């Protein structure tokens, strides 16, 4: 009964999404007030139906209803309750339901958020969101219905892939999807502006908080995913340039560019058509990412079981959705006029470079991701692209971006003049360079050429970000939340750059074969192997090793790496034990039994690796803080009084 209810709710949601799209877009076009008034009930109803459907699927999972095919294929009665719920998004159909549910949440939030905006505009925004909901609901019902029954029901389920039975997995897809799907709101704002044929600075101010919110979720989601890969794959890698990782990273790069270009459009009324294009592209890349993951055209560790009909459906949807948005863009964008000019060294230029470099970075990642497809399609022979391609090409556009950031945040709008900031900036640059070299050549040894540059740039970003807030504090001027948010996000970026450089340059690792009681040395760390003993989990058994770790004789930790064998799938997974000591991560993974009580072990010390993820959360926190700024809440108030106060004073440092 419950699965049927879920399916029925899904069908109703499809109909309501159709109404939402129709009234939302056609209503304003024909200037029918009553049609526009129907948009809110439609989106509310759609949300309720989608939530019901999601609730039904969760219930089937909790109740171990193995007459539902999707539950039987992805859950098992031995699975702990927590993972039975998380198993919902462990495979294709359920993760689509999650996608649709989150889109419904964003839609209802957008309906509330736009209620004070001009009615025709608000109605168009919700209408565009309705089109997207409709497409995904139709896709789910037509090709990937999770409520299909099995007759006869299976006695027990096949269980969730062991590699996915992990707290990181439970949290990572919902947060990542929230970010992915959130970009739909920016897309809808762009769509509404294009349908209306009008885009002003108010539009940019309305769009900014939505974009930043989606971006913050996306940052957290990517960080969680990378963290999950780091400790479940048991190898200490945290980024593989895997197609699915790229699929989440490309929208992030675009959204980052969009956040910055929206700042220019809001403050100065410039870059309008460019901003519009970025808003369309950011969400389009989410959709293309969805296509790449689910159509099976690329193989990946995260990919879902593929089927041709699914691929064709998404491709058709892509063509309709992105194609019509870009066609609309080609028609409407030429009408938009910039409101002012700017000098070459003004902040606008720096943000333009920021955009160009981010989009270039995104394009190189995109090219690498679909290179195997293009060479296949053109019969050019086979091409393999991996980290050897991605690392250098990505650095090529990101290094100049990092170098320009510190100067850019101090440039004034319109006029290219650093003023009294030039001297202090130079001082911070020198301090950063000295510190960078000191860290690389003093604290550690054997860094590469790029290491002092990376660490120096990271320190410079942090120091130069602090100039403005410190200056304001000393002069007792309050710091707007938007500025504070931007500062925090940039400091997060600085920390990120420092930590990733240090991980790349100073990781020490070794594979050793150890007998019980013998020791291995890795730098100042000593690892003593105490043998293995059997372990027993809720749905697995295996062996756990004991390794006593000391640093210059001081105890660090007693570590327990495991090898688990999951009963249902009969697969063995490696669970590395990872501990934080000072600022480094110490990792011990259990390898093979070599006989006579000897085991192979992987030992690894990665300095600052945890700070990579921490930095992502700091960036996201900065974004969230910026959203809470007062001027976004006064949605209908006239744009900030730029006429009364000289712009250079008001706007210094408010780009984020």
């Amino acid at each position: 009964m419950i699965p049927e209810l879920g399916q029925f709710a899904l069908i109703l949601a499809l109909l309501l999404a159709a109404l939402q799209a129709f009234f939302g877009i056609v209503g304003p076009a024909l200037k029918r007030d009553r049609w526009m008034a129907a948009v809110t009930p439609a989106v509310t109803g759609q949300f309720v139906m989608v939530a019901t459907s999601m609730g039904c699927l969760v219930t089937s999972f909790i109740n171990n209803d193995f007459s539902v095919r999707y539950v039987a294929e992805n859950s098992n009665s031995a699975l702990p309750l927590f993972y039975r719920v998380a198993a919902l998004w462990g495979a294709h159909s359920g993760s689509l339901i999650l996608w649709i549910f989150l889109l419904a949440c964003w839609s209802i939030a957008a309906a509330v958020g736009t209620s004070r905006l001009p009615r025709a505009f608000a109605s168009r925004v919700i209408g565009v969101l309705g089109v997207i909901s409709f497409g995904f609901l139709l896709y789910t019902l037509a090709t990937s219905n999770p409520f299909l029954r099995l007759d006869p029901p299976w006695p027990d389920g096949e269980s969730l892939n062991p590699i996915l039975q992990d707290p990181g997995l439970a949290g990572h897809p919902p947060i990542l999807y929230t970010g992915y799907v959130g970009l739909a709101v920016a897309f809808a704002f762009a769509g509404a502006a294009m349908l209306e044929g009008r885009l002003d600075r108010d539009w940019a101010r309305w769009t900014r908080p939505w974009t930043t919110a989606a971006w913050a979720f996306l940052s957290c989601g990517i960080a969680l995913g990378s963290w999950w890969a780091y400790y479940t794959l048991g190898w200490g890698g945290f980024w593989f340039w895997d197609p699915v990782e790229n699929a989440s990273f490309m929208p992030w790069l675009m959204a980052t560019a969009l956040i910055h270009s929206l700042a220019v459009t809001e403050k100065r009324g410039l870059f309008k058509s460019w901003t519009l294009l970025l808003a369309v592209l950011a969400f389009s890349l989410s959709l293309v990412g969805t296509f790449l993951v689910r159509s099976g055209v690329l193989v990946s560790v995260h990919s879902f079981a593929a089927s041709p009909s699914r691929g064709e459906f998404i491709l058709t949807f892509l063509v309709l959705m992105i194609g019509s948005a870009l066609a609309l863009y080609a028609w409407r964008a030429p009408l938009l006029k910039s409101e002012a000019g700017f000098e070459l060294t003004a902040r606008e230029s720096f943000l333009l470079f920021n955009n160009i470099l981010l989009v270039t970075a995104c394009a190189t990642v995109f090219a690498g991701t679909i290179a195997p497809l293009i060479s296949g399609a053109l019969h050019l022979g086979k091409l393999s692209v991996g980290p050897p391609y991605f690392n250098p090409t990505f650095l090529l556009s990101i290094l100049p971006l990092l170098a320009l950031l510190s100067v850019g945040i101090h440039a004034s709008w319109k006029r290219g003049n650093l003023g009294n900031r030039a001297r202090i900036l130079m001082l911070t640059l020198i301090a950063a360079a000295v510190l960078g070299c000191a860290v690389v050549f003093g604290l550690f040894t054997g860094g590469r050429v790029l290491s002092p540059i990376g660490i120096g740039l990271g320190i410079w970003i942090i120091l130069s970000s602090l100039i403005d807030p410190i200056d304001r504090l000393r002069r007792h001027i309050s710091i707007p939340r938007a500025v504070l948010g931007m500062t925090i996000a940039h400091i997060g970026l600085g920390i990120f750059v420092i930590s990733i450089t240090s991980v790349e340059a100073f990781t020490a690792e070794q594979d050793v074969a150890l007998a019980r009681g013998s020791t291995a040395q890795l730098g100042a760390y000593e690892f003593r192997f105490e043998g293995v003993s059997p372990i027993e989990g809720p749905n697995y058994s295996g062996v756990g090793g004991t390794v006593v770790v000391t640093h210059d004789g001081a105890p660090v930790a007693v570590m327990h790496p495991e090898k688990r064998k999951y009963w249902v799938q009969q697969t063995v997974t490696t669970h590395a034990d990872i501990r934080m000591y000072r600022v480094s991560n110490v990792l011990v993974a259990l390898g093979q039994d070599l006989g006579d009580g000897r085991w192979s072990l992987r030992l690894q010390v990665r300095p600052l690796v945890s700070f990579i993820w921490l930095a992502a959360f700091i960036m996201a926190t900065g974004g969230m803080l910026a959203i809470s700024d007062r001027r976004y809440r006064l949605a209908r108030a006239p744009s900030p009084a730029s006429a009364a106060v000289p712009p250079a004073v008001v706007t210094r440092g408010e780009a984020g």
Partner: protein
Amino acid sequence: MSRLRFIIPLVVFALLVAVLGIGIRQSPDKNIIPSPLIGKPAPAFSLPNLIEPGQRVSTAQLRGHWYLFNIWGTWCVECRVEQPMLLKIKQSGVIPLVGLDWRDDPNDALSYLKQEGDPYETIAVDQDGSEAIMWGAYGAPETFLVNPQGIVVYKYIGPITEEAWQREILPRLPLASTPAAGSSS
């Protein structure tokens, strides 16, 4: 002219759709679209042996019995996913696995195998990736089933699953060599 500039994104997107469309048609269900190698002799090669330096692995040595030719690399995340299944195949004793270590640092490969277990009978090193091209490898892992006459019988793209092993590979082997391997399903 200035209006035309705004059409560029649409044109680029149309090109992309064409590529993706061909992508789907070429590899929708990767197990159905056959490799051009199927029914043809496996490419002849003679490559350095990973485990025993100085030795070589060649097609001539592999003649005369069935084997699974598995293209992998330590950089390949999917290969790690596939690893437990490969070990299971090795344990079953049904068919030997011949590895092609593709575009990899041999030292990385050796320590990976030490850590995760070595499912292979023998491993050839293809450091510059030229051999994998001869086999038409799209990515890793890819697995080819080769018969005693050296003819490629079947190709599987992506990590081998229990299902692929049971339904696609085992039935293609002569009956004599298929005891109850990989008994759980």
